[in-house]
C-alpha cells in the first residue's frame, strides 16, 4: 500500500580521506511536498588511536510548492487567555491579532477558538471558516474576567484539533497567556507531559507569553515537549506581528510526524541529542519532530563517543532512517542515509575535514545549554556562577567564531553577553531577562524560524 521512496545515494568517496558521506535522498513529484535530508559530521576524519566525541548533524528542510494556494491545510485552535489580567489593551490586541491571523486562512482550513478564565469556553468549535463574520464576532465579544485555567484551556483546544485530526494538515494549538496558571494542573512538568502526549497525536502547541506575568518555564516546556514554538511578547502591540509569524510558520509546513531513527555503527555510542528530546536505547536513537517547514532547516545534532581506531580505518558511524508524512499526499514516506567516518594520524587531514555548518550548530547548541544551566544556577541563587558560566561561553563563542565567521554565532554571542549582565539584575528585571532567555533557548533548540 505505502509507496516507499527508499533512495540510498551512497556516494562512496575514493580510498583517500574523503570518507564523510552524505546521503541525500529525494525523489519528488514535480509539485509534491518532500523533505530533503542532509547528513553531516563535525569532522569527516577523526584522529586515530584516540577515544573521542563527534557530532552527527541530520538536517531536514522541506521542499514544497512556493505558491501559498498550494500550502497544506491547517487545523488550528486558538487558545486565548481572558483572565482578569488580560483586561484592557492586552485583550484588545489579542483579539485584533487573532482576527488578523485568521484572515490568512482559506476555505480548507479548520479553526477553533477557545477562551479560558477560571472556566473554559469553546467560543468556536472546530469549523471550516465558511462564516468568518460569526467567528470574528465571537472573538470580539471576549471580556476579561476570572483566573487562569490554562491547562483546561489547552485541553479543550487540543480536543477541538483532535476532532478533525488530519494526516494532510498541520495540527496546531496556539496558546496565548499573560498569567500564571492557577486552576487545574499548573506545573511546567504537568504541561510538558501533556505536550509530549499531544505530540504523539501530531499536535504541536505553540505558546505565546505576553507581558511579564506569565510562567515562562511552563510555556517553554509545553512548547518544547510538543516541538512547538515559544515566543516572549513584551508589549501587546507586538501580538499581531507574532501571530502573523506563527501562522506563516504553520503555512510553511510540508511534512509532519517526522521521526528520525539513527543506529550507530560498531564502536560508536550515542551520548545525547542536543536541544531536542530523544529516546536513546543502546546504540539506537529516535528523535521525533512535529513537522518540517519549507522555510527553515531543522536539524538533529547527535553527540557520539567513538572508540579508538587505527589510521586508515573507515567506519559507518550511523545509519539513518527518516520517516515522515508528506502533507500533500497523506502518506508515510521514508528515506535513509548513512554517515561514514575515516581515521587518520595526520592532524591536517582531521582539520581539513572539519564541517563549518556542523561546528556552528554544535557551538550554538552548547551555548544554549550553557544559558539553560545559567538559569538554573540563577534560580538557585548562585548568581556569580551563572555569570561566570555565561561569560566563559561568550569567550568560547568569540574564539571559535573568529575562524567560523558565523552571523548566527555573533548574534548568539550578543545574547549571551546580555544574559550575563541580566543574571545580576534585581529580581524584577531578571524576570524579564529570564523570559527573553527562555524564548531564545526555544528558538535555538528547535531552529524556530522567528
Amino acid at each position: 500500500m505505502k509507496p516507499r521512496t527508499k533512495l540510498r545515494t551512497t556516494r562512496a568517496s575514493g580510498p583517500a580521506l574523503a570518507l564523510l558521506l552524505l546521503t541525500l535522498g529525494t525523489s519528488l513529484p514535480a509539485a509534491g511536498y518532500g523533505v530533503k535530508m542532509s547528513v553531516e559530521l563535525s569532522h569527516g576524519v577523526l584522529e586515530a588511536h584516540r577515544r573521542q566525541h563527534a557530532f552527527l548533524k541530520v538536517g531536514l528542510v522541506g521542499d514544497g510548492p512556493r505558491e501559498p494556494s498550494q500550502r497544506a491545510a491547517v487545523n488550528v485552535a486558538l487558545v486565548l487567555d481572558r483572565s482578569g489580567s488580560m483586561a484592557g489593551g492586552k485583550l484588545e490586541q489579542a483579539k485584533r491579532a487573532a482576527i488578523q491571523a485568521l484572515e490568512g486562512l482559506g476555505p480548507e482550513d479548520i479553526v477553533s477558538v477557545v477562551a479560558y478564565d477560571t472556566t473554559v469556553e469553546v467560543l468556536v468549535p472546530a469549523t471550516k471558516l465558511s462564516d468568518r463574520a460569526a467567528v470574528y464576532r465571537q472573538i470580539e465579544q471576549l471580556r476579561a474576567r476570572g483566573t487562569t485555567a490554562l491547562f483546561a484551556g489547552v485541553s479543550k483546544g487540543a480536543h477541538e484539533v483532535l476532532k478533525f485530526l488530519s494526516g494532510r494538515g498541520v495540527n496546531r494549538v496556539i496558546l496565548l497567556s499573560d498569567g500564571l496558571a492557577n486552576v487545574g494542573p499548573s506545573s511546567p512538568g504537568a504541561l510538558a507531559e501533556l505536550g509530549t502526549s499531544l505530540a504523539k497525536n501530531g499536535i504541536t502547541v505553540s505558546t505565546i507569553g505576553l507581558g511579564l506575568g506569565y510562567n515562562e518555564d511552563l510555556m517553554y516546556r509545553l512548547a518544547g515537549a510538543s516541538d512547538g514554538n515559544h515566543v516572549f511578547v513584551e508589549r501587546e502591540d507586538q501580538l499581531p506581528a507574532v501571530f502573523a509569524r506563527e501562522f506563516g510558520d504553520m503555512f510553511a509546513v510540508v511534512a509532519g510526524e517526522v521521526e528520525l531513527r539513527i543506529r550507530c555503527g560498531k564502536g560508536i555510542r550515542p551520548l545525547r541529542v542536543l536541544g531536542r528530546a530523544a529516546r536513546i536505547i543502546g546504540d539506537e536513537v529516535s528523535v521525533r519532530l512535529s513537522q518540517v517547514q519549507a522555510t527553515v532547516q531543522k536539524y538533529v545534532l547527535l553527540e557520539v563517543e567513538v572508540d579508538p581506531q587505527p589510521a586508515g580505518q573507515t567506519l559507518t558511524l550511523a545509519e539513518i532512517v527518516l520517516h515522515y508524512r508528506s502533507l500533500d499526499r497523506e502518506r508515510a514516506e521514508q528515506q535513509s542515509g548513512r554517515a561514514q567516518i575515516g581515521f587518520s594520524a595526520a592532524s591536517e587531514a582531521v582539520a581539513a575535514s572539519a564541517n563549518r555548518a556542523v561546528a556552528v550548530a554544535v557551538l550554538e547548541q552548547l551555548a544554549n545549554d550553557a544559558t539553560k544551566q545559567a538559569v538554573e544556577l540563577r534560580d538557585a541563587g548562585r548568581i556569580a556562577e551563572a555569570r561566570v558560566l555565561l561569560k566563559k561561553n561568550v569567550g568560547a563563542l568569540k574564539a571559535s567564531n573568529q575562524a567560523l565567521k558565523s552571523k548566527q554565532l555573533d548574534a548568539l554571542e550578543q545574547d549571551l553577553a546580555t544574559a550575563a549582565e541580566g543574571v545580576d539584575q534585581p529580581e524584577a528585571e531578571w524576570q524579564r531577562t529570564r523570559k527573553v532567555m527562555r524564548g531564545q533557548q526555544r528558538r535555538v533548540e528547535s531552529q524556530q524560524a522567528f
Partner: protein
Amino acid sequence: MHSRARGRLVVALSLMVLIPAALLGWLAREVVVADRHRAQRALGSLVGGELHQAEARVLGVLERRRAELLDRGPTPTDTAALRVLVAEQAAVRQVFLLGSDGRRLHPPALGPLSVEEEAFLQRVRGLLADPLQLVVADEEGASPKKTRPTAAAPGAAQGWYAWFWEDGLQLLLWQRSSAGYLIGFELDRYRLLADLAAALPDTPRGRLADPRRRTVLVDERGEALYEWGGYDPAPGASPAASIALAAPLQAWRLRGFIDPRVTAASTGRSLALAAGAGVLAVTLALGGLALFLWRESTRAAREAAQRVSFVSRVSHELKTPLTNIRMYSELLEADFGAGDPRAAGYLQIVNSECRRLSRLIDNVLSFARQQRTAPLLRRSVGQVDALVRELITAFEPAFAARGVQLVFSGQAERPVWVDADALRQILNNLLSNAEKYASGGKVVQVSTRARAHTTEIRVSDQGPGISATQAERVFEPFVRLSSALDEGASGTGIGLGIARELARAHGGDLVLEQDEGGAPAPRGATFVVTLRTEAAADPAAGAEPPSAATTDSRDRA
C-alpha cells in the same frame, strides 16, 4: 367607661387579633421553611443527578481508553513493538509486560533501556515486585470492571489499578491474557486530565449557559482539576452536592455548587408571598372584627359622653340663672319667710331643689372638666366636722321627706388643711346617693374620725346594698346597677366616680366597705372616704398649705 375596663378590653381585643395572627404567621413560616428545604433538597438531588452524569462522562473516557488499549486484538509482546506503542499511543506513558512465569519481558530485563523506561521502573517497582496486587485490588472492588473473562480469551482478566506517585493519582490498566502474559499500561496522568477536561462541559456565556451552577472535579488533595459553570462560589463555600467518583478514580470527587440566590428565588418565594398575604388578610379581618367590637362596646360610653358634653354645655348656660334664682329665693326666705308658715314651707322646698340642681350642675361640670384634666384642689384651714354638719343640715329636709333619719357623730374637730369645696362635693354625692338608693332603710349614719394625717368619713345606709361583683363598678361613670334599684332614682351616674376622683386627688380614696368575707355588708352599704388632711399648726394663722407648691402650679396650669 372606666379607663381600667377600657384597658382590659383593649388588651383582650389585641390578644384576639395578635394570637391567631402570630400563630398563623408561625405556621406560614414553618411551611415556607419546609418548602425551602424541600426545594433545596430537590435542587441538591438535581445537582447530584448532574454530578452523576458528569461522572458517567469521566468513566466513559476511561472505558474508551480501556477499549482502545485492550479490545483491539492481541497486544504485542515484543519490546520493539511495545516501544512503538508507547511512542504512538498518546494516552500511554509507559508499558510493562510480564511473562506467565512472572519474569519481566518489557522493559527488557537485559539490554539497554531509555531514560524514561528506567524512571518508569522506579515508579512501578513495588507493583512489579508483587503483581498480584493488581488482581487483589480489583477483587476488593477497587474497580467497577471486575475481572472479566472474555469469550475470545477465556481465563483472561483485566482491570484498573490506581496508585499515588509524585504529582498524584496514577492509573494503570492491566490485562492478563489467556497465555498468561500480564501487560500493564501506565496512563499519562495529564493526558487523561486533558481528555477529561475535553469530555466535560465547557462554560458558554450568554448562550446556553446556566450562570448559577459550578461543578468542580477535585483531586485527592481537594484541588480543582477542572471546573465548569458560570457561577463563581466564594472560596470555602460548601457544595450543594458532592460525590466521589467510582473506582478507579474513587479518590477524586465532583462537587456541585449552586448560587444560593437560586434556592431563594425558586418556588419558595411565591409560597412565602402567598403565606404572607394570607397572614395579612387574616390579621386585617381579625383587626376589623376587633375594631367593630371595640366600637360596639364603647358606643354606650361615647353616647353618654356626648350626652355629658351636651348637658355640660347646657349646664353652663343654666348655672347663672340658677345662681340668681337661688340667691333671691334665699333672700326671700330670710326676709319674708317668717311671716307666713306656708310661704316659708314653699320657699324651703324651692331652696332645697335649687341646691339639688346646683349640685347636679356642679357634678356635670366637674365630670366634663375631669375628662380633660385632673381635678384641682385649693386647700385652706377648716374643720371637717363643721363642713359635714353644714351639709347634713342642708340634706336633712330631703331625707326627712323620705322618712330617713340622718345621724351624725363627729370626731374631727381639729383644724386641718382641707379643700372645702371638694369635701362638699364628695359628701353631696354620697348623701344624694344614699338619698336615692337607701330609702328602704330608716337611718343613714354619717361619722367622721381624725387620724394623724388623714380624716375618715363614713356614710352608711340600710338600703339594699351592693353585691361584691358590682362593688367596683359603681364608681365607673354612667353605671347604674339593676334597673330594679333605679326605680324612682334619677341622675347622671357619674356622682360616685367624681367623688372618688376628688378623694384620690386629695391624697385619699373612696371605697365601698367590705366585710371580713370580702363581700360588702349584706344589707346596706357603707362608703368610706379617706382624705389626707395635714393638721394646721395654728388655726388662726393663714399658713401655707403643705402642698402649696403643687396647688399653685396646678392653679397656674
